[in-house]
């Protein structure tokens, strides 16, 4: 079987899970039609999630336990490795979210399997998996394959969000099974949380992202220009490392190497010069628009459209134009 670990947030199946379903179905087809796709749902009070994902796969395994209310790399990796072993999974698909990329290496080592990280394409031929992923801060596309010779699963794979098309749900729901897990006691104790949820669309799932950098001038400037434009277009807002460090914006909005990777239909960079670390988080966006006063800013090199000029004059003019 091909095992998908379903990602979910706030009582809903995440878009990344539907994308993994597409990757799994393609793999199942390449491997032969009798390869079932199984989803594993981990969490507490997750019945609605299990019901939702049942319409995408051939079988759903549910571990609805109070112990799984809070994500932990030791718990998650133990659960996934146990289910992969018991179900003799050939491929394990995990979302390349921050947590997925954290616990997947543990799963790979427990199963003595290769780890293919953050892949953008995946192909099975016989017992070999071939994948592509980005390297060098997303500037190079590399092809990798499993070296074979393993007796266990072919590979543990993390799937980059926003690349595969989300699968459409089917009319029929697959059967659900509760599973028993042998879980370790978590050693990392979380003593406090700062949730930085914005009221807007989530960055990772947004079709349009408006981001701001130092060129917006101040925290107030960010609200006045970036947030105003995002509200007008129904977009998510993003920020550069520099202004997150300056305390103008929360970390959850950071786009780039140490923040989130996005690839929306439209990315508008306002007052962003375009350091390579920032570009690595957004350079796969379909259409990139740059607005910056510095004609030499590297962001213009990867822009489809741009305006060289002052943010305080240009953004109000764009808002006026959009409202016409």
């Amino acid at each position, binding site marked *: 079987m091909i095992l998908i670990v379903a990602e979910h947030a706030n009582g809903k199946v995440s878009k990344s899970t539907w994308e993994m379903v597409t990757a799994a179905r393609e793999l199942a087809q390449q491997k032969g039609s009798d390869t079932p796709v199984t989803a594993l749902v981990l969490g507490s009070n997750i019945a609605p999630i299990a019901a939702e994902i049942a319409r995408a796969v051939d079988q759903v395994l549910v571990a609805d336990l109070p112990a799984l209310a809070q994500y932990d790399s030791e718990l998650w*990796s133990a659960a996934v490795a146990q289910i992969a072993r018991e179900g003799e999974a050939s491929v394990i698909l995990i979302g390349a979210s921050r947590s997925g990329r954290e616990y997947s290496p543990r799963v*790979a080592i427990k199963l003595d399997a290769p*780890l293919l990280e953050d892949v953008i394409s995946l192909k099975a031929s016989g017992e070999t998996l071939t994948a592509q992923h980005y390297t060098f*801060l997303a500037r190079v596309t590399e092809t990798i394959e499993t070296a074979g010779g393993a007796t266990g699963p072919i590979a543990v794979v993390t799937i980059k969000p926003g690349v595969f098309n989300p699968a459409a749900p089917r009319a029929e729901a697959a059967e659900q099974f509760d599973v028993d897990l042998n879980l370790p006691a978590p050693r990392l104790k979380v003593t*406090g949380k700062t949730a930085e949820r914005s009221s807007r669309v989530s960055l990772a799932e947004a079709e349009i992202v408006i981001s701001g950098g130092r060129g917006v001038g101040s925290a107030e400037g960010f609200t006045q220009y970036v947030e105003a434009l995002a509200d007008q277009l129904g977009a998510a807002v993003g920020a550069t490392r520099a202004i997150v460090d300056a305390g103008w914006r929360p970390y*959850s909005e950071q786009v780039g190497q*140490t923040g989130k990777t996005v690839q929306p239909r439209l990315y508008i960079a306002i007052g962003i010069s375009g350091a390579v670390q920032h570009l690595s988080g957004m350079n796969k966006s379909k259409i990139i628009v740059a607005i910056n006063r510095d004609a030499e800013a590297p962001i213009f090199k990867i822009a489809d459209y741009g305006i060289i000029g002052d943010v305080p004059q240009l953004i109000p*003019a764009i808002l006026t134009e959009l409202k016409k």
Partner: protein
Amino acid sequence: MRILTYIRQVLDAEESVHVANGAVALENSKLVMDTMDEYGVEEALRLRESGVEAEIVAVAVGPARVQDALRTALAMGVDRAIHVETDTRLDAIALSKVLAQIAQQEQATLILSGGQQADWDSHALGAATAERLNWPLVTWTSALELKGATLTGKHDVEEGSETFTLELPAVITTQQGLNEPRYPTLPNIMKSKKKELRKESLDRFNVTPKIKFTNAEIQVKSRLNKILDGKDAPAAASQLVDLLRNEAKVIA
């Protein structure tokens, strides 16, 4: 106690990447210690300066040239260095086998390693090493304190951040924002030349990579590059909105 900081030598972020014969070519490019790892070296030094009695050992795996990165770590203040020499590229899972064995051999109780590699963009090394040692792990750490055997700190998660507490031994992955790495001073550079840099052969670690790297290419998405002059703001704004609506068709 003993702290291991794992360091890697990578292409300077300001340099452009070149590909030849299906692989990234690093010849003639400026190579530096991965900045993500530099935060780990700095944090180890700061833990010691905060009163923790510790020997700090820098470890690197790679060709002869990675010694330059180890020398930088020694000049920053690390006590000694271990270089496992190999020209074979190891993926993070394979690399973790080397690092875990060195941690055991050195009886280390804290390992610091960068959160993401600037060359292979991998996040896996810290977690894989923790798993091999059966140690807990904290990734994307932005603040760290050590009192006795108890680590406390803060780290970034999917949507926001968490504060945590944890007993040693542990693996911590580091990132920008944790600290401001120091520059080696001239006296420290001179002193570092006398510090131990021990070479080891990869053979004795019994590592078999499970991944083959078959191709690398630079796929540049062609961009339209229609850049407008914004001196007349209303005119430029009108033109841009028209392009986005009617040419790119990305807004209504």
